[in-house]
Structures are given as C-alpha cells and as structure tokens.
C-alpha cells in the first residue's frame, strides 16, 4: 500500500475525521451525563442513575427521546434561517476538531512515522479563530428566525457578548503566538516539551491563560456568562422556539464548543500531550509513549470540562451590563497589557 498516494491519504484522513467525529460525540454525550451527575452531587442529590449501571446509558435514552419528539416549527418563523441556524452552530463547532494535535509523533508498524493530528497546516490557530467566529451566526440567526421576543433578545445578547469576548480571546492567544513564533498548533505543542515535558506556556503566560479561560467560558455561553439563555429572564433564550432534534443540535454544539475550547486551552497553555517526565520512562516515538501522552492529553481536557461543570454548580449569573463592562473595561485592557508585556519580554530576549 502506497501511503504517499494522495487518494489513499485523503481516504485515511476521511477515516480519521469520521473516528474523531464519533469519539467527540461520545465524549459530549458523557460530558452531559457527567454534568448532570456532578451537579447532582454538588447540590446534594443523585442525578440520573436509572438507565444502565449507574446511569451510563442515559445519553442514549436522551437521544432516543430527542429523535422521537414532535417537531414544532413556529408559524411566523423565517423558515430557511430557522433551519439553517442549528446547522451552522453544529458545523462550526465540529470543524475545528481537525487541527488539534492529540498525541506526539509515533512510529507505527506499516505506517511509519505518524503525527497524531488530522490536518497540520500553517495557520491552524487562525483557522480555529475563523471557524469559531462563524459559530456566532448559529445563535444570532436562531434568535432572529424564531420571531419571538425572547429568542431575539437572546440572539442579540449572544452576538454582543460573543463579539466582545472574542476580542479578549484572540488577544490572550497573541502572547502564546509571540512566544512560539508560529500559528501551527503542532509546533506550539512541541515547543512546550522542554524541561522534561513541563515547559508549559501557562507559566510565562499565566495572565493570558486566565484571560483565555474567562473569555472562553463567555464564548461558549456557559455559567456565569450564560445570558443568551438565561432561563429566569428569557425562558430559554435563543433556542426557546426550538424543539426535538434541532434543540439537540444546539445542545450538542454547546458541548462540542466546550470540548474544543478545553482542547485549545490544553494545547496552548497546558502543554498539549506533554506529560511531565514521560520521556524518562519511554523513548519518545514509541507506542507506549504515545498512548500515555494521549491519555495525559485527555486528562487535561477533562479537567477543563470538570471546571466548567464545577463553575456551573458554584457561580451565579452576571447582569448584562456587568458582563459587557467586565469584558470591555477589565478583560480587554488586561489582555492588551499581557500582549505588551510579552512583546517587551520577547524583545528583550527574556522569553
């Protein structure tokens, strides 16, 4: 089998995308379950534990329910956009998955040396930003197309919030970019493998990390920034008028987004697949090294997902003006300061 044949490569990539897609869907499904159970524990109750042993089959039950529910389309809605919105949301959420490196370079039998990333290219980080920025349309258009007061408010809030926080999000990444001098995620991760796999960007870029995490939570519309779907004010925000599988799509998009921003945080700040000291145990490039690295990668990602759930169980919601003021008057200046600081240090040769 000639691996350099472009058609075979394309087929392999297609296969990889397919696998990733399914794995991520599984992760999302079980994140939902985990959220419900952990929230239950936080709030002193049990959470879903009936379907399957300890509730492990609950996601599938939910899926079945979504599929068989009645589709209700509001009469006065703008049809085309109404259907388009969830598709945009889920597609843009899924599209970034292909650029994240989830494991180190590994030598496999038959395949030779393989980089554990689906697509590696020059502008990976920009690609992530670009695709994420499309995601806002899903919510905004959903809010507009539903032709409902609550939805429109939710959509408006969401677009304002997402534009505002995207700025600090992008700026918080600039520090890392300045330090690594590339937009290629794979290389950014590799640069963090120094100091026995402990040269993570979080140490020099702690401010950037905090800003990133805050704005990422806001970007994914999670607590305490979940104003677009604030149920106490707006019923369910932008997806008030969505039901059944279309609602499931929005729900899925939100959780995929959570997953992808966690992956990005891991990749950029927590050293990606670098496990400290692993290179002392196994030779880099060997299969066990790769396996443990991938496991380490997912542990970090799950830590962030847990953090999301934890925050949801802990923090109250912002008021909208507080949210905007926080984004523009605190987060953005801090992010700018971080950029200036990093640039100065890089220029001085400290970093």
């Amino acid at each position, binding site marked *: 089998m000639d691996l350099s044949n472009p058609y075979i490569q394309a087929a392999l990539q297609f296969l990889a995308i397919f696998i990733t897609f399914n794995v991520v869907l599984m992760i999302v499904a079980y994140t939902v379950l985990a959220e419900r159970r952990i929230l239950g524990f936080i709030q002193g109750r049990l959470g879903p534990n009936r379907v399957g042993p300890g509730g492990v089959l609950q996601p599938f039950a939910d899926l079945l329910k979504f599929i068989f529910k009645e589709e209700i389309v509001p009469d006065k809605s703008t049809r085309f956009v109404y259907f388009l919105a969830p598709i945009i949301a889920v597609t843009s959420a899924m599209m970034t998955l292909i650029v994240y490196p989830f494991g180190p370079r590994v030598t496999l039998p038959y395949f030779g040396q393989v980089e554990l990333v689906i697509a590696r290219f020059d502008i990976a980080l*920009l690609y992530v930003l*670009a695709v994420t920025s499309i995601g806002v349309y899903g919510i905004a258009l959903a809010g507009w197309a539903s032709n409902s007061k609550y939805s429109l408010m939710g959509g408006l809030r969401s677009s304002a919030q997402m*534009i505002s926080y995207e700025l600090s999000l992008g700026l918080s990444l600039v520090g890392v970019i300045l330090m690594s001098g590339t937009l290629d995620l794979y290389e950014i991760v590799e640069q963090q493998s120094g100091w026995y796999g402990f040269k993570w960007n979080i140490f020099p870029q702690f401010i950037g990390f905090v800003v990133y995490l805050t704005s990422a939570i806001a970007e994914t519309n999670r607590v305490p920034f979940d104003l677009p779907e604030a149920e106490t004010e707006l019923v369910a925000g932008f997806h008030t008028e969505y039901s059944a599988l279309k609602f499931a799509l929005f729900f899925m998009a939100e959780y995929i987004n959570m997953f992808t921003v966690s992956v990005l945080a891991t990749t950029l700040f927590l050293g990606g697949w670098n496990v400290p000291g692993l290179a002392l145990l196994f030779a880099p490039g060997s299969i066990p090294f790769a396996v443990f690295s991938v496991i380490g990668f997912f542990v970090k990602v799950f830590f962030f997902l847990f953090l999301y759930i934890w925050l949801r169980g802990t923090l109250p919601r912002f008021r909208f003006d507080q949210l905007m003021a926080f984004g523009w008057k605190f987060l953005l200046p801090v992010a700018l300061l971080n950029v200036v600081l990093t640039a100065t240090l890089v220029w001085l040769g400290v970093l």
Partner: protein
Amino acid sequence: MTILIFLLLAALTIGCAVAMVAQRNPLYSAIALIGVFLGMAGIYVTLAAPFIAAIQVIVYAGAIMVLVVFVIMLLNVEEEVRRPIRLRRLVPLGVLLAAIFFAEAAFIIYFVETSAYNPPPATQSNVGLTASVGTGLFTKYLLPFEITSLLILMAIVGAITLARRVSTLEGGRTRLRATEETRSQTSAD
C-alpha cells in the same frame, strides 16, 4: 481537481452574490454575503494564500458581518418596499453603460489571457504563508501598517461619537454651560 474546486467555489460565490442583491430582506442579503465571503476564503486557499483566507473569514465573516447582522436585528429592518422607478427614461442609458462595462471587462480579461507574460500559478510557493506576510507587513510596509492602525483608532473614536445617545450630548452641553458659568464667575472675581 483544483479547477473543479475553483468552479464550485466560484459558483457558490456568484450565486450568493446574486442572491444578496436580489433579496429584499436585508438579513437574507447579509447571510448571502457571508456565503460570498466564505466562498472567497476558499478561493484564496486555491490561490495558496491561507493566511489571507483565514483573515478574510475572521475579519469579514467574523466581525464585520456580525456587526451588520447585529445592526439589522437591532433596528429590526423591514423588507424594502417596491417603488416605481424614478428615472425611467435613463434605463436605456444604464443598459448602454452596462454593455460598455462588459465590453471593457471582457477585453481586459482577454488581454491578460493572451498577454505574453502569463505565469503559471504558484501552488507551492511560500508567498501566502504567515511568515512572509508578517515579514512584508512589518518591514517594507511598516508605515502603511501603522497608518492603518491610526485609521482604526479614528474609526473607533468616530463610531463611539456617532453612536452616542443624544441625551449624553445634551448632558455634555449642560456641563459645558456649567463650566462657562464658573469661568465667567472666576473672571468676574
């Protein structure tokens, strides 16, 4: 293969562009325009300019069009009403101009096609990569870059001034009057 991709993207782009102009609902127009921008990003990729493609999506689709959509939603713009054409007798003139324009464009494209220097496309060059764009931007074209940043600053100030509510303006005026009064008092002293 590339030709196929190009044709697909071009069809998407032109289709969306036509839809944008044809639609009377501004939001549909905006969605169509987003489609145009995405198609163009794809075309930039076929031109081996991935950086510009990404920027295209981030800036146009991610920022400018979000603003436009936001404004459309905020102002709750209705569909355009049809009105009678005001200057009906100028329609033939318009057709004539269109014909001239078409002729000129066709001629120029024909001219490029037949010109002696018609280089092959550069799919593998590093011209479009981030590093080369950055190098160009921060060395040879530093001054234009700085001027652009100044322009952006002016735009920020301008936008804030324009969007400021009239009530704050009145507040400002009263404040101004107050300072004038105090000034006249101090000068009287």
